[in-house]
C-alpha cells in the first residue's frame, strides 16, 4: 500500500515565493503518474516534497497512510532518479548501486544478489567495475535506475530522467521504464516537461501550471476532453489550433463564424454565447482534405504558407482569416505552399472554450 496523498499542501520558499499554493492530489498504489507542465509550474517541487528534499510549508502529505511531513527522506521508503543521474563519481557502478543497502546495513551476500539482479535486468553486468565517468549517457541513466531498483522502494520518483539523452535513446529508455514499472509493480511518479513522454508512459497525467493542477486524468481523456485552454494547448503535437470565432444562431442549432467560414456546432451549451466571441479549438488531424468529409457548413478554403512533407502525411501551415493554423493531412491529398486548399473540419471533435475563463464550454 503506497498511494500518495496531498492535502492542501502549500510550498513557500524562504524568499517568500509561493510555488505551490494549495495542492490536492491522490496517486493510487502501483500507478504510473506523470507530472507535466512548463518549467516553473511546481512539478519538480511536488516531486521533491514527496522525496522529502523540500519541506512542506502547510498541509499534509501521506505515503500510504503515514503522515510524511516530518519524516526524513531515508525513512520514506522511496527511491529517486535525478535529471543529472547524480551518480557518485568516485564509486564504481557496483558501489553506486550498493551504497544505500550498505548504509541500511544489509548483509553482504544479499547486497550482492540484489545488485546483480538489477544489473541483469538493466544489462549493466559488464560495467559493474567501471566508474560513472567511463559510461555513456544511456548507461549512466540505467545505473541511476538500478540504484533506485535495488532498494525495493514503495515509490519510485523520476525527475526528468530522460532529458539529457539524445532523441533515439530517449525513445528506447521510455519503453524500458514503462516495462520496469510493470515488472516492479510499484508506484511511479515521473516529472517531465515533454508531453510526448507524459502521453506515452503515464497511467494518469497530472498537468500543472503555476503550482496548480489543471487536469488529472488518463492520457486519452486529456487528449479528447481537455478541460481548459492550457491543457488543450499543452497536450498534443503539433499543438491544437485556436481560432477566435463568433457564435451565431443557425437554424435550430448554432454556428461558429470566423472569416468566411460558418462551422455548424449543434451544442446546447452554446446558447448563452450567441453573439459573443469564443475560442474554438481544432486538432491538426481533425481537418480533412479527403473529399468524403466535405459537407455543408464544415469547410474552409485556406492559403498554404508552408508545407512539410513527413512521409505518409504532411503538415500544412495555413493562413486563414488572419489566423495561423496547422493541419495534418495524408500526403496524397496535400497541396504545396502558395496554393489554396479546401479542408473540412470534423465538427464532432470541436473544442470550445470561454474566452474569459478559458474553461471548456463543451467537449
Amino acid at each position, binding site marked *: 500500500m503506497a498511494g500518495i496523498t496531498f492535502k492542501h499542501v502549500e510550498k513557500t520558499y524562504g524568499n517568500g515565493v509561493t510555488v505551490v499554493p494549495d495542492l490536492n492530489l491522490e496517486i493510487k498504489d502501483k500507478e504510473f503518474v506523470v507530472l507535466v507542465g512548463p518549467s516553473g509550474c511546481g512539478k519538480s517541487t511536488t516531486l521533491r516534497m514527496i522525496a*522529502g528534499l523540500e*519541506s*512542506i*510549508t502547510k498541509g*499534509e502529505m501521506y505515503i500510504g497512510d503515514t*503522515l510524511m*511531513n*516530518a*519524516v*526524513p*527522506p531515508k525513512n520514506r521508503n522511496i527511491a529517486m532518479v535525478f535529471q543529472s543521474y547524480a551518480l557518485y563519481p568516485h564509486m564504481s557502478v557496483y558501489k553506486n548501486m550498493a551504497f544505500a543497502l550498505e548504509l541500511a546495513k544489509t548483509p553482504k551476500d544479499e547486497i550482492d544478489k540484489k545488485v546483480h539482479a538489477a544489473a541483469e535486468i538493466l544489462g549493466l553486468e559488464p560495467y559493474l567495475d567501471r566508474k560513472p565517468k567511463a559510461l555513456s549517457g544511456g548507461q549512466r541513466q540505467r545505473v541511476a535506475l538500478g540504484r533506485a531498483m535495488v532498494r525495493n522502494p514503495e515509490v519510485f520518483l523520476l525527475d526528468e530522467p530522460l532529458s539529457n539523452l539524445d532523441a533515439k535513446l530517449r525513445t528506447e529508455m521510455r519503453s524500458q521504464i514503462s516495462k520496469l514499472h510493470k515488472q516492479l509493480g510499484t508506484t511511479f511518479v515521473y516529472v517531465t516537461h515533454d508531453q510526448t513522454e507524459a502521453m506515452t508512459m503515464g497511467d494518469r497525467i497530472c498537468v500543472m501550471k503555476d503550482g496548480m493542477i489543471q487536469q488529472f486524468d488518463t492520457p486519452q481523456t486529456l487528449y479528447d476532453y481537455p478541460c481548459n485552454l492550457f491543457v488543450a494547448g499543452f497536450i498534443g503535437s503539433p499543438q491544437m489550433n485556436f481560432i477566435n470565432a463568433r457564435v451565431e444562431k443557425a437554424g435550430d442549432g448554432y454556428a461558429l463564424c470566423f472569416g468566411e467560414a460558418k462551422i455548424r456546432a449543434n451544442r446546447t451549451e452554446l446558447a448563452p454565447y450567441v453573439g459573443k466571441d469564443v475560442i474554438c479549438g481544432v486538432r491538426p488531424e481533425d481537418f480533412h482534405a479527403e473529399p468524403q468529409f466535405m459537407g455543408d457548413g464544415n469547410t474552409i478554403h485556406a492559403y498554404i504558407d508552408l508545407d512539410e512533407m513527413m512521409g505518409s502525411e504532411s503538415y500544412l501551415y495555413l493562413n486563414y482569416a488572419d489566423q495561423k493554423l496547422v493541419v495534418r493531412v495524408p500526403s496524397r491529398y496535400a497541396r504545396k505552399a502558395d496554393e489554396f486548399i479546401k479542408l473540412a473540419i470534423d465538427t464532432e471533435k470541436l473544442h470550445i472554450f470561454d474566452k474569459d475563463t478559458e474553461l471548456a464550454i463543451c467537449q
Partner: protein
Amino acid sequence: MAKKSKPEIKQVSYAKWGYIFIAPFFIAFLIFQLIPLAQTIYYSFFEYYRSGLTIIGPNPVGFDNYKALFDSDFLKYAGNTIILWLAGFIPQIVISLILAAWFTDVRLKIRGKQFFKVVIYMPNLIMASAFAMLFFALFSENGPVNASLVSMGILDKPFRFLASVSGTRGLVALMNFLMWFGNTTILLMAAVMGINPALFEAAELDGCSPRQTFFRITLPMIRPILVYVLITSMIGGLQMFDVPQILTNGKGSPDRTVTTLIMFLNNHLYSKNYGMAGAISVILFIICAILCLLVYFNLNPTEDDKKIRKRDRFKPRKEALNG
C-alpha cells in the same frame, strides 16, 4: 484525520546542519582572531607596559598611545615598509607581465614552459627566514658573493652589503622579488589564458602587433586579476617581517632604515608594551580593512559593476591607448 488545523506541522529541514558545519570556523575565528582583535583595539587606549619586572597599567590614556606613536619613528618605519615593498613589487609586476605575455604568446613558441614555471615559482615555497639567513651568509663581508666578486676583479675589496642602506634594502627587495614574481606570473598567465582565444585571433586579423595586442587586449582584459595581485601584494608588503628581521637580526640596521611596521610591532610585543603594540596594530588593521574591502568588491562585483565591466570589454580603455 480530516482536518487537524495545527498551525504548523513539523518539517523536514536541514538548516541546522548549515549552522553546525560552519560553526567550527566561526568559533575558531572568534577565539583566535576576533576576541584578540577586540583586545588589541581596547588596549590601544591604555597605558600598559612592563618596565623591568613591574607591570604599569592598564590605565586608560585615550589617544596618547597614538600621539606617542606619531612622535616616535612610526612614520619612518611606514616609509621603510613602502620603499621596501615598492622596490620589490615594481620589478615583480613588470617582469611577471612580460613573462605572462611571452608564455601565452602563440607566435613565440617557448619551449620548456612547464620547467620555467616550476623554477620561478620555487622561491615562493622557501622558508623566508632561511632564505634571509642564506642571503646573509652569502652576502656577508667574507661570504662567497664578495669572494667571487673580488677574485673576478670586479671589486678590489669586499663590499659590505649589510652596512649600506641601499645594499640592505636592495637585498630585501631582491628576495621579495624572487619569492613572489613566479607566483604573480602564474596568476597572470592563468588570467590571460582565460581570455577567449578568438579575441587574439581577431586582433591579429585586424593587424595588431604583439605590443598593441598586449596593451589593448590583454591588459584591459586581465584588469581584475591585476587589481587582485596589487592589493594582495600591498597586504603582503604591510606584513613584511621575516626577511628584514632575520637579515638584520631584528635591528633594521643600518640605522633602522629597513625596520618595517611589523618589526616595530614585534619589538613592542617583545618589550611587552601592549598599549603601543595595540596602537600600531589598530593602524595596520584600518589600512588592511580598507584593502580587504577593495578585494571584496574586486572579487564580488555588484550588478552595476558587472554590466560596466562587460561593456568595457568591447571598448579599448584610455590607459591602454596612451600606453
